[in-house]
């Protein structure tokens, strides 16, 4: 190692930083393993933390080798991107904000800087400064990569959950042979109404349903836009040859709709899902008899 150091000019500061990182890989990883970020993520085994630290150091050396210390898209980072994402995700789960995670990442720099300074002590001040600048730039880029990864993971999670919400929120239930129902729960917006319409119409085809019931008991408010969406769904179902019944309009909503001047006159409505089902069964010619007096189903 001393021969290497005494080997005269080593080229640019970046390449020197690279050589330093490769030489001190083990030491840096050991020091990082004591930092709060690694300690908190790898609680079980210190060896694992050291291994993770080594992987990060290797990535940094590779980026320095490619002379791309300022480029957060450098190829060297791809290997550790997933690991950094996992680390920052686990810190976020522990309740830390993205700023705090970023600060913890920043605290990885001083130990490396100390090592570098002590190693290049005998060098001229100018050279030393150039090297520390290159190193600090590299560590800054590492921070950017980690934060980028954390943010994109968060965005991916949100996107996934939005899709799941759309799927979960619109189940189509087969109530009887030829009768399907969609119990709508929560606020209806354009995207959701579109999904409701599509799933309902597909269910009408798949299950050969002559009747479709839209139950809006769980819809808190109905404005003109929601009403328009409901009308569209009803019209589309009718075009396909199915009859659509809207049920579960609550008294307050009925008042609002009348005040807004919304006309659902052409749409068949029933007070509750039970009434709507009763109407559909009656239209299908299915008689339901009660246990005691055999009274027919309500209309």
């Amino acid at each position: 190692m001393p021969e290497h150091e005494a080997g005269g000019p080593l080229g640019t500061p970046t390449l020197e930083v690279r050589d330093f990182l490769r030489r001190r890989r083990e030491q840096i990883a050991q020091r990082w393993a004591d930092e709060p970020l690694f300690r908190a993520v790898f609680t079980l085994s210190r060896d694992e933390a050291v291994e993770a630290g080594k992987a990060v150091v290797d990535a940094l050396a590779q980026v320095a080798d490619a002379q791309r210390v300022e480029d957060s898209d450098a190829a060297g980072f791809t290997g550790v991107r997933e690991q950094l994402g996992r680390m920052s995700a686990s810190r976020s789960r522990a309740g830390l904000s993205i700023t705090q995670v970023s600060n913890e990442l920043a605290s990885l720099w001083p130990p490396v800087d100390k090592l570098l300074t002590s190693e290049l002590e005998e060098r001229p001040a100018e050279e030393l400064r150039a090297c520390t600048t290159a190193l600090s730039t590299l560590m800054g880029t590492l921070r950017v990569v980690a934060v980028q990864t954390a943010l994109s993971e968060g965005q991916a999670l949100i996107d996934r959950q939005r899709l799941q919400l759309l799927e979960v929120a619109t189940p189509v239930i087969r109530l009887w042979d030829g009768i399907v129902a969609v119990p709508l729960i929560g606020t209806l917006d354009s995207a959701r109404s579109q999904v409701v319409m599509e799933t309902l119409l597909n269910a009408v085809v798949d299950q050969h349903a002559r009747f479709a019931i839209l139950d809006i008991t769980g819809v808190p408010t109905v404005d003109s836009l929601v009403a328009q969406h409901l009308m569209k769904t009803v019209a589309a179902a009718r075009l396909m040859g199915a009859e659509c019944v809207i049920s579960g309009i609550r008294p307050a909503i009925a008042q609002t709709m009348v005040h807004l001047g919304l006309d659902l006159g052409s749409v068949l409505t029933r007070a509750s899902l039970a009434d709507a089902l009763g109407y559909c069964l009656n239209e299908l010619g299915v008689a339901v008899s009660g246990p005691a007096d055999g009274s027919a189903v309500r209309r």
Partner: protein
Amino acid sequence: MNEAYSRPEAGQVPVLRLGDILLVTLQGDLHDSTAQQLQQDLSETIVSAGVTGVVIDISGVEIVDSFLGRVLAEIAAQASLLAARTVVAGMRPAVAITLVELGLTLPGLRTALDAQAAMALLEQPVVRSHAGGMRRERA
């Protein structure tokens, strides 16, 4: 049941006669000339054969525009003038959504899930409801 193609020429929509009902199956694009020819064929056949119902099966139509919507409405209006009921059968969900988005809800048109349901619908007797519209009467 006598069954015959009204005009077995190429580029035309075949019109099948099944008893008192005419069955038209639309597939793919409908061009202006074809649509006009179909309307003419239908009205002539309704008069000459004395049919009481027309079933238009559009389950083979994937893409729809306002033109097709207008043609369907016109056929229904013509048939109704000649005392025949028209039922559009087998509309796909995507087609229904497109028509509704275009604002073509075709209020005067009867619809059915498929051709079989349409035939069953036409076999039922008709009563006039108080609103003036047609209503199915259950046996």
